[in-house]
């Protein structure tokens, strides 16, 4: 078994997670993520093909609720923590660009 991930593998994972990483971090992740993955892989060594999954520990019976209008939030309140806004709108940076 190789002892670290390739740079491409780490960059792929960082892209999935939408986290920018530095060259220095890249090297550290090659080793650290591999250590974690090795440990995780011990689960795959378990010889068990059961497909009875536990998704949540205790299942609640689904219930219907009244189809009624609930409490509304004041847009001013909702936007209180928003970093960039314009009136009652949330501002986002350019979505399509050449950079």
């Amino acid at each position, binding site marked *: 078994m190789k002892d670290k991930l390739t740079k491409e593998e780490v960059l792929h994972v960082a892209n999935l997670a939408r986290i920018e990483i530095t060259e220095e971090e890249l090297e550290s992740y090659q080793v650290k*993520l591999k250590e974690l*993955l090795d440990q995780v892989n011990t689960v795959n060594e*378990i010889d068990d093909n059961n497909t009875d999954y536990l998704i*949540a*520990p205790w299942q609640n019976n689904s219930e219907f609720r009244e189809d009624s209008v609930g409490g509304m939030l004041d847009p001013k309140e909702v936007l*209180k923590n928003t970093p960039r806004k314009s009136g009652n709108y949330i501002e986002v940076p350019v979505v399509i660009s050449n950079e």
Partner: protein
Amino acid sequence: MSKYLDLDLVEINKLLKKKEITPTDLVLECFDRIEKNKDLNCFITLNKEEALKRAKELEDKEITSLTYGIPIAIKDNIVTKDLRTTAASKMLENFIPIYDADVIKKINDSGMIIVGKANMDEFAMGSSTQTSYFGHTKNPWNKKLVPGGSSGGSAAVVSARITPIALGSDTGGSIRQPSSFCGIVGLKPTYGRVSRYGLIAFASSLDQIGPMTRNVYENAVVLNTICGKSKNDLTSFDTSEDFTRLIGEDISGMKIAIPNFYVNDAIDMEIKNKLNDVVQILKSKNCTVDYVDIDYIDKAVPLYQIIAMGEASSNLARFDGIRYGYSYENPKNIDDLYLKTRRFGFGNEVKRRIMIGSYLLSGENATTYYNKAMAIRNKMRNSFLNVFKKYDLIIGPTATTKAYPLGCDLDDAVKAFMDDILTIPVNMAGLPGMNLPIGFSIDHLPIGMQIIGAPFDEAKIYKLGSFIEKELNLDLTPSGGDNND
């Protein structure tokens, strides 16, 4: 300085009812203690002005509960309206929630007074409170040691007798392990017992909020307050009952199981010896104590890594720098905003876990890892349930070690999880589990045991816990606070 906060809740309640003291006296004493213990760094945000205002309001009202007027600390991943909630992350450094978590409403309704938001590991990821963006918390028993984590601030606050009660959250041991390191009683309730609405999600199928207190009875009182179904959390159950009702009942004839894994070589001898002393007491009371096997319990850590990190990577995807929280200045475009906001907003431990989680859930991996983990998790849970067909409770140590030095293992990706090998299985199976202090190490640090119950059987945990507590009669006030800087 007054010492009302050293009294138990029943005595404080009597004094309040007789009007010998007021909630304001309690809040002022609490802030005196906060000031004196500033160096422990238990709190991220204090709520002094509001707390005093509320104490004043409570003075004229009827005293309706045992927790009326009592100061409480809240772990900083539980949202509090108009009171900064950071989850100990730069990402939420300036976040002011616009609503209260379900548990906060219940805490307020019962007359408790929130004095501050307790320090923790960033997004509850860690077991030593050292990954906090706001600096580490120190252990009140010895300031060179960690308090455990991730609810380390909550544990230290109760241990140092700053507040009698704190709330924590537990995903893989985050209430029980710091309770063990700090010598307090901490319960992770059955999954679904307490609403998670307003708890900043880490791993949704594992997270639970629970009470952290100085003794067993008060723990049960707080659980009475915070439990119950919520329309905002469809995984919560309507299971109200009086959790104190079995306290004081005769324990003779109880059937207790100890998983063989819970006496393995990774556990300190000192801890195993203390547990053994308890076993001898139980046997002398005609309890049966047997050793049992639980399927796959030795695989709980890798299972946790798959399930908790997978769920975390999905839960933490919401931190995008757009709607709330930290946002990178002057991004080139939207992708640049995501990448840089998350690079600069999250700490190392959080980034590592999100990255692994993203990988484990990507493409084919979801089947290879996550489905497999859910299947094994099911088997482990069923194995626990089989034990409860024959036994009332399961016991074992809470942690493999006592509190260890600050600065230790901060960057060891794998070691961080080994602290939790005895607590993670309980979250995996959705069971209730409680830390109970059972003695001290040779250097006078608290040692804890874990009492694990069948689903929704917290009352029985409290029954056994209070018996052992009474039998041991330990002095759990930290002694080392002043002379070991």
